[in-house]
């Protein structure tokens, strides 16, 4: 009996959100938000490791043989650094339960270079990725102050990485994909949000702030 009552309570929450309040439009048509997310695992693999994943446009990296003097004495790479994904979004609230987001993300990466003989720093490799990622966001919990959602998006990413140790500019264009199983925003007009995500932009979490109008 208690389990049945709990089930009814759950359905009431869900149904009440979708139906009894679903006919009322969401009070805010638009949102803008900015956030920071990490860990950009694909950027780490592609930019810092030099592997090409979904490359559509790639510049050729000249290969002069592993055992040549120029390869043996090439500057070696130090620790790589990533800024994480810095994103900005413009959101359109079509329904209480559905939001279309148009987001742009930026991620920077760099890596110092050291002379193979002396170990002194000689410069650095550096680059960035820029992605355009429209997302469909499904808001499955809408309260006055709290919203919870899931989202899925598909877009494009462009990356440019200056590999000075190889005298090569790596340019890559590849599909962007991001899935957010759960996210939460807290606030009314001005809010904070946090979400977990997996995809080409980042693997982990994103936090940020937004403004509804």
């Amino acid at each position: 009996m208690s389990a049945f009552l709990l089930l009814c309570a759950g359905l009431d929450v869900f149904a009440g959100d979708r139906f009894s309040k679903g006919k009322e439009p969401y009070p805010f048509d638009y949102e803008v938000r900015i956030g920071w997310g990490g860990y950009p695992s694909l950027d780490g693999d592609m930019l810092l490791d030099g592997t090409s994943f979904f490359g559509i446009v790639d510049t050729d990296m000249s290969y002069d043989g592993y055992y040549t003097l120029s390869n043996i004495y090439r500057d070696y790479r130090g620790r790589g650094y990533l800024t994480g994904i810095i994103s900005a979004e413009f959101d359109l609230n079509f329904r209480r339960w559905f939001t279309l987001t148009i987001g742009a993300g930026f991620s920077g990466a760099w890596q110092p270079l050291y002379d193979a003989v002396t170990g002194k720093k000689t410069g650095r490799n550096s680059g960035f990725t820029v992605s355009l990622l429209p997302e469909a966001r499904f808001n499955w919990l809408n309260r006055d102050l709290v919203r919870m959602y899931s989202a899925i998006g598909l877009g494009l990413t462009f990356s440019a990485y200056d590999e000075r140790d190889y005298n090569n500019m790596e340019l890559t264009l590849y599909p962007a994909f991001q899935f957010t199983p759960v996210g939460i925003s807290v606030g009314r007009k001005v809010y904070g949000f946090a979400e977990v995500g997996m995809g080409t932009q980042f693997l982990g979490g994103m936090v940020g702030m937004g403004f509804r109008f």
Partner: protein
Amino acid sequence: MLPLVLLAQVSCKIYDDEDSLQEPAYMVVQQTYRAYVDDLFRMVELADFYRSYREIWQDREASMQLADSYFPEGRVSEDGLYYEMADVSGWGVIKAGNDGTYTIKSYGDYSCYVFRNYYGYESMNYEVTVSADGYFSIKSVDPEDDAGNDSILKIEAKARCADGNVIIEECNIVSDFCNIVSVADKPLVRKRVTPSGTAYNADSGSLSYSYSDKSGVNDAFVLGFHADHVSIERGSSVVKCLLLNEVERSVDYVISD
């Protein structure tokens, strides 16, 4: 805005370590030692054995005993020993010339890519002259390789055998890109081959390296041989590394004090 600035500070500390090459010259000396210097030691051993063999060659039993006392088992067969030539597996084929010189075709090894600009099996031809006081003068003649490579490679050395050691007192290896010269007051000394096997690393001595190629890379240093390590010396900078046969390629070949 402030939270984002703080987040940006935190985000910068995402690392991705890369392996680092600690001493590039080590890879170069590994290749050259395997391809050329080790070969020189072997050619001296082969010439030393052949000189002794030719004095007793008519006594077949004594000849084989001499071969068995020189080289590990299985390296010399009875049908590989003649007055005019001897074939020692892993060392080479040595022949006597009319003017008292020997010619040797080494069994060879894979070439040093850095200095031959190709990677393939390479067998060297040498002329060896023996002086009255027991010195071997070795000179390379037109190396043969499996790629028809026509780059320059010239090897000259002066060596002797004494007290169970092979001592290379003078050495000159010249290619299109590199000079390797023995350091005059530090001859290379390595234990001579015995039936138990052959040593690889020299026990003492030094070789002076200098090289450059068209890509602009150039380096100059002294390779020092010690009992338990080799050293790469550039002026006051000395890098201690593992012995040359202890590792093929590893970032751990530099010995940290």
